[in-house]
């Protein structure tokens, strides 16, 4: 940790050596460690209040199997906080003219419309590829994958409104990725897309003239609610919700004890069958037949595999959380 002074208001801020863009917690100005103020800093608007967010979460959870139908009455909020996560969004226009060699086939040994062998020769090839792509990068400190890969809707971005962040006592995270690094990464991604298209047409590129232009770029903070809740006291569950569109990014699921017991009972039932199947298969393999004259090897293998996998799936489905993809 080091101290840095805001170039706008002079406030002292604790920063980490890896921070690339700092947002002043006193006045909301964003600046780089060398003290240059960012001209353009965007954020998504907070459209969901804390109680809206909680209602959305309840409406989502109540649809999940194993959750009590009267969850809305039982749920109690332990903590709700807002964090602004930083993302870079770059629009890159790439243009590559290339010269190289490509393979061309000739055929030998004709019979009918077909040939018995194929021979490759090399020919000169030239061409041109143009692609414009919007590249989105999560720029903050290490967090859960659901947030890193969250497909933010850049459409509703506005200029960063510090008053709004302050009003929600939000924690505004600093970017670990500088503007230049983000730009290079976005160009690199666009370049890969263009070259994968070129490589489809050309065996080897020998000479290329590249031109990459950033047509638009934005540093965007996305407000996300972190919610901790309990259901009728007991264990604490966590969830994250997009404060601008109300989407559930992830949530842990408060399944009822009754449901969990039933699920565990059913998984135990599957696993007992797995063991029985494995034992019978083993004995049959050794030539010991439980019922004389009946070779139970194959059905026992069937029993052990199917019930084993059903047991594993049951455990998986009743314990997993929910990611943005499923919560959409």
């Amino acid at each position: 940790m080091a101290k840095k002074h805001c170039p706008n208001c002079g406030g002292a801020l604790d920063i980490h050596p890896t921070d690339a863009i700092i947002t002043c917690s006193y006045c909301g100005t964003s600046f780089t460690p060398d003290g240059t103020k960012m001209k353009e800093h965007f954020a998504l608007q907070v459209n969901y209040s804390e109680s809206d967010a909680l209602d959305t979460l309840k409406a989502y959870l109540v649809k999940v199997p194993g959750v009590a139908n009267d969850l809305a009455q039982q749920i109690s909020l332990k903590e709700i906080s807002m964090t602004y996560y930083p993302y870079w969004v770059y629009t890159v226009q790439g243009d590559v003219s290339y010269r190289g060699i490509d393979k061309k086939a000739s055929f030998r040994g004709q019979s009918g419309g077909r040939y018995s062998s194929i021979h490759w020769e090399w020919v000169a090839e030239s061409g041109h590829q143009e692609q414009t792509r919007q590249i989105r990068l999560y720029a903050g400190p290490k967090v859960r994958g659901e947030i890193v890969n969250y497909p933010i809707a850049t459409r509703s971005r506005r200029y960063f409104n510090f008053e709004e962040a302050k009003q929600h006592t939000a924690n505004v995270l600093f970017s670990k990725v500088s503007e230049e690094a983000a730009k290079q990464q976005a160009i690199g991604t666009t370049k890969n897309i263009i070259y994968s298209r070129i490589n489809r047409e050309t065996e080897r590129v020998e000479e290329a003239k590249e031109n990459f232009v950033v047509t638009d770029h934005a540093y965007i903070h996305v407000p996300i609610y972190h919610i901790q809740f309990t259901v009728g006291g007991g264990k604490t569950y966590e969830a994250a919700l997009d404060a601008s569109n109300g989407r559930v990014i992830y949530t842990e699921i408060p399944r009822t004890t009754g449901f969990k017991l039933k699920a565990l009972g059913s998984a135990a039932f599957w696993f007992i069958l797995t063991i029985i199947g494995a034992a019978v298969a083993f004995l049959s393999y050794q030539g010991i037949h439980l019922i004389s004259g009946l070779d139970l090897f194959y059905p026992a293998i069937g029993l052990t595999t199917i019930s084993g996998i059903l047991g594993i799936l049951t455990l998986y489905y009743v314990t997993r959380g929910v990611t943005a993809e499923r919560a959409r």
Partner: protein
Amino acid sequence: MESTTKPIETMTALKCQSCNAPLTVSPDDVVIVCGYCGYTTTIEGDKIDNHFVLEPTVDASDVREKVTDWVGRGGKAQVTEAILRFVPFWVEEMHAHSTYQGYKKHQETEYYTDSQGKRRSRTKIEYEPIQGTFDENRSINVLCRRGATFYSQGELDKALQVTKREVKPFNYNSITAAEKNPLFLNSELTDADAYEIAETYVEDDHRSRADSRATEIWDCHTRIQKTGSYLLHVPHWLVRYRFGTETYRVGIDGYTKKVLKGEVPVTTAFRAAMYFVSILFLFIGTVGTYFVAEFLRPQGLEMLSFAVVILSLIIAAFAIRQTFKISSEKRE
């Protein structure tokens, strides 16, 4: 602080050139439709004349009725909200010409009798040159949004590519006859952006069609010439309904009245049935395997009874997944 906390007002201070109403504009918008009079301009202020629309064929009460019917379950679904949105597309018209070259590999097993009189097999490989051209006029609808922003957006995009529809010149008055407060989504793509996307799409389409005809295509060249373009607004209804204590969404194509995609409740009866299916296939995978193995034993092929195990496993695993799924989606 002046540069970082510009008030939102400066972003929305644009006024409609035709009726002077304030316009709601986000920084990503490049084509703006006035919500009060329908006047459409680029962000630079140039009027867009080649603007068309698919006129909605259903109003809010039709949509409510439609959703209640579609959900079924004794009409217990209660529609709480129905929003009509006009979604922008650029329709890019072009002439595309491709030539491709490649080959198809044919592999055949031949049986023959060798000099010792034994039956033998050999694999014969032959190559067939493949070449051809695609020469066609294409009209590609490019959805003018960069990020996914509303429910069933992808389905609307797809539906539009496959059904031929009658477009009409954009006329604000005839639209407001069906819905008093239509919501227009602005376009985040310029005509040129959309053309580039359409071009890439057609190039890839020709390439994949050529690929499907051959083992390998070593050369595929496409020349594309733009012949025209227009902005098209397509009606889309987003409907929310309550079923018991739960809320679900349905997206409806405002032109064909079809449900693009909708969430439907998963009932306990359905879950119980699926659980029963998984047990049933465990039974089939065990007892069935026994009989299949016994049947195949005389031929020495009893190993093949594993196929019954694998098949039963796939069905049982699918049924378990259905048992615990959170919500179900249906298309019409």
